[in-house]
């Protein structure tokens, strides 16, 4: 089987060499000594097919985490899986490709028909989402290497006031929108570029990347899981999905007895406490408030979309082609700057300015549509977050917040209730 793979790899290579002989290659010198000409080497990358082993491992880890979190309620089991993920997905696989990055592959594949997406990238995108619909954010709990490394470095987590938590909780949705916009327009993979931990996993990288990683790890000593809580774009999606999960980790194995022993259990403040007063406020007033906030949503969406469209020019500058076109139009003197390789290479390539400008226009159009959608989506997010505040939910038990809980299992050992 391996020979077949080698043959399939080498044969087309030989074909290309063969056909190139018919092209204009000037004959090499005739050597009279016994000199044999070497051939250029073509070293192979890591075996094709190993990526599916990674998908399998992901599947196993997700399944085991679900089992430990919900069925067997073992914090130790989840901790072991966390260590395994840091080792396997982190240091062994260098943290690439990861589910966070797969958002970009999927976005680009949907937007650009020419882009070929690998099946395993698609699976890395889908599997954690499917699991979250049934078991909660088990991916975050033990499978994601970024989450795992932050989880292991929690030292003295501080408590963050609720209003600040909710405000900062908006950032992942914003980041998600930007990541999708930039990936879909083919400009850049932002999540990959500013992934703090991939430099740590590789144990080398550009200086700025390493500094960012160290900054996040240091912050992680005092804020539990800073990237997960306040930045991760995939986490934003998992947050929404997890709210509809069929089963979820629960602090208490059966009914909560309100002993309050778990109040300090969660470093991520993901346990919802029952209200002090269980009185339901004035129904008419609260219904009016609800309806008002509901009708604010389309207004916010329109406003957001409008703001988004106004900023599309600024956002499109991140795209290299657009930036170059703009530079050449607004600062034509840069054409004489011989030290600017990019400008000089473009000028030497023979591509006419009109073509570049036309291409930049197309990209800018995409950014226009994308920014409208981005703005409207952010308006929707803000509207829903506000709406969430005014919905009264009678809380009688200490429950893990379905959207925010990572299913790490720390709280399980705090609860004294016995399983029935």
């Amino acid at each position, binding site marked *: 089987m391996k020979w077949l793979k080698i043959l399939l790899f080498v044969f087309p290579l030989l074909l290309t060499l063969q*056909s*190139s002989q018919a092209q204009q*290659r000037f004959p090499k*010198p005739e*050597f009279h000594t016994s000199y044999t000409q070497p051939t250029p080497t073509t070293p192979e*990358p890591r075996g094709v097919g190993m990526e599916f082993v990674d998908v399998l491992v992901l599947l196993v880890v997700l399944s085991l985490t679900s089992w430990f979190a919900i069925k067997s309620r073992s914090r130790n089991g989840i901790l072991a899986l966390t260590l395994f993920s840091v080792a396997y997905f982190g240091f062994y696989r260098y943290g690439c*490709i990861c589910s966070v990055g797969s958002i970009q592959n999927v976005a680009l594949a949907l937007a650009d028909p020419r882009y070929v997406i690998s099946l395993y990238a698609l699976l890395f995108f889908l599997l954690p989402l499917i699991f979250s619909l049934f078991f909660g954010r088990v991916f975050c709990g033990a499978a994601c290497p970024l989450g795992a490394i932050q989880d292991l470095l929690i030292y003295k987590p501080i408590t963050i006031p609720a209003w600040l938590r909710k405000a900062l909780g908006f950032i992942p949705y914003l980041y998600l929108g930007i990541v999708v916009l930039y990936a879909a327009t083919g400009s*850049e993979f932002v999540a990959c570029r500013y992934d703090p931990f991939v430099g740590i996993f590789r144990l*080398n990288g550009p200086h700025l990347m390493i500094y960012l990683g160290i900054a996040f790890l240091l912050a992680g000593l005092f804020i539990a899981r800073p990237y997960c809580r306040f930045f991760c774009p995939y986490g934003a999606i998992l947050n929404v999905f997890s709210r509809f999960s069929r089963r979820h980790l629960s602090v208490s194995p059966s009914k909560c007895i309100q002993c309050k022993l778990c109040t300090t259990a969660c470093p991520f403040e993901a346990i919802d406490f029952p209200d002090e007063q269980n009185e339901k406020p004035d129904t008419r007033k609260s219904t009016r408030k609800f309806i008002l906030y509901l009708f604010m949503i389309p207004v916010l969406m329109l406003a957001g979309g409008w703001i988004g469209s106004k900023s599309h020019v600024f956002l499109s500058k991140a795209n290299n082609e657009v930036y170059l076109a703009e530079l050449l139009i607004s600062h034509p003197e840069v054409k004489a700057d011989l030290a600017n390789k990019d400008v000089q290479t*473009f000028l030497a390539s023979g591509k006419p300015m009109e073509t570049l400008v036309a291409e930049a226009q197309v990209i800018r159009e995409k950014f226009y549509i994308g920014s409208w959608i981005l703005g409207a989506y952010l308006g929707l997010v803000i509207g829903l977050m506000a709406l969430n505040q005014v919905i009264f939910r009678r809380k009688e038990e200490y429950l893990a917040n379905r959207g925010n809980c990572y299913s790490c299992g720390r709280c399980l050992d705090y609860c004294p209730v016995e399983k029935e």
Partner: protein
Amino acid sequence: MNRKTFINNSGRLILLGGLTYLTGSIIFKRKVSASGKYVWQIDPFKCTQCGRCESQCVKNVSAVKCVHAYQLCGYCDLCGGYFKPNSHELTTGGENQLCPTGALKRKYVEEPFFEYTIDEELCNGCGKCVKGCSSFGNGSLQLQIRHDLCRNCNECSISRMCPSEAIIRVPIEAAYQIKGDFVKPAIQNLKK
């Protein structure tokens, strides 16, 4: 509460449906590579030897190395990629060599031909020899990404900075593009 479970179930169904639709549209309307892997490749005819392959690779020692397409080489005594332009003596002295790390090796074959090989352990992918070879020689030296070294990042850091968009994603079967002819138009002529 029944309402709660109803919302929960329908929400889940909608999201599952959404995921199915998304997956379906990707599988049926877009290109999915099930068996193949995609890797990064430098098109040697677009490369302008800007030096960024050496500095922009996420690895400290770049995964880009100089590769010799021996079929195109003229085996010249005065190799444009080996010697500094003003070399007086054509010897292997370090002061004459273009290569900053001494990775390009010169070996006598027969009068007046010399073989030039690259020691990949020393090569840092700067492209100076490639520039010399393509300006003054046949252009048989070229930069290529070595896939046993390349981490195959989701987005190649060098490709972000490449001025001629020479780094592209290719299927693994066509991973390497070794030059077979030197007649393809090349961007070499920077106004300097």
